[in-house]
């Protein structure tokens, strides 16, 4: 955790330094943009973390484990994919929830399947794709996209311990 924080801060400072070295207002605009995003998403973040807190306290570890635990197998991966498609909101909402499930006993395969399914197949995103690209394109893109969470989930389940 401390290492990850340090890495992230170094990256942020490096990018900020690079933006500063450009002879325009990139550094200031980028900082402002990040700050505005933070302010706008703060209510969501707080709610998401309250949910995380309740997931921990209520500790439905047995339920989590039996549905999407390390031994839930292929069925767990499928449930993970379905859950990922239904997850609403952006990364700051979805990632803390997935992390809470993972720490409450979800297996690696279902967890990875959930992340990738949310990335590639989220229903709310598909509702944007349809009007702009048409149903033929969406059907094609989604049938290819379905391989992504399946592949990740199966690899996580079968080949990586934990």
């Amino acid at each position, binding site marked *: 955790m401390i290492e990850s924080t340090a890495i*992230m801060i170094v990256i942020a400072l490096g*990018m900020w330094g690079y933006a500063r070295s450009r002879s325009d207002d990139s550094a200031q605009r980028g900082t402002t943009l990040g*700050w505005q995003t933070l302010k706008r998403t703060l209510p969501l*973040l707080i709610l998401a973390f309250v949910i995380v807190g309740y997931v921990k306290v*209520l500790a439905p570890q047995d339920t989590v484990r039996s549905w999407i635990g390390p031994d839930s197998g292929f069925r767990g991966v499928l449930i993970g994919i379905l859950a990922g498609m239904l997850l609403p909101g952006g990364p700051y909402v979805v990632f803390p929830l997935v992390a809470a499930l993972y720490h409450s006993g979800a297996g690696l395969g279902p967890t*990875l399947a959930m992340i990738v399914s949310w990335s590639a197949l989220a229903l709310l995103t598909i509702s944007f794709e349809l009007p702009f*690209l048409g149903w033929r394109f969406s059907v094609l893109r989604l049938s290819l996209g379905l391989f992504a969470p399946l592949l*990740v989930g199966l690899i996580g389940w079968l080949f990586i311990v934990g």
Partner: protein
Amino acid sequence: MGRWIPDRTTLFLLAVVIVLAGLAWMQGGLPAVVDGISSGANELLRVTPMLLAAFLVAGLTQVLVSREVIERWLGSGAGWSGILLACLGGALIPGGPYVYYPIAGALLGSGAGLGVLVAFISAKNLWSITRLPYEFALLGARLTLIRYAVTFLLPPLFGLVAEAVFGSKIDSIRGAMR
């Protein structure tokens, strides 16, 4: 993502919080309700330094990557190099679906190849640079590394497969746009 329907998402999360608080109440009364909130607050405080850095990285990425360059890459034709450039564009383009789908739609209308568009959207989904800091901060290094490693080859592969198998159907695909 998230930005485009903040109200619906906020309401949904609020409803989930209320249901969970009710469950906690039934299990342990008021102390359990407070416990959940304080446990969540602790967790949030723990990741705050990392989140602040992540938001700064995401903001700077949006400023440093120009949309014009990405649009030019996507227009650069099909084949290997076009698909790889489209992947790079998808990885770098900031913003949610309300940003990249209109661009993709405009490109499909103006004659971009199928493989290029599939590669672009798949890379946005799986290689997104602006999402990476949040993923790293909130899910941890291990899950993030495994996730990127396993899905690394998929965006160009999806682009190539789409082009090879359905590339000749591009006119009817375009026709379904209305």
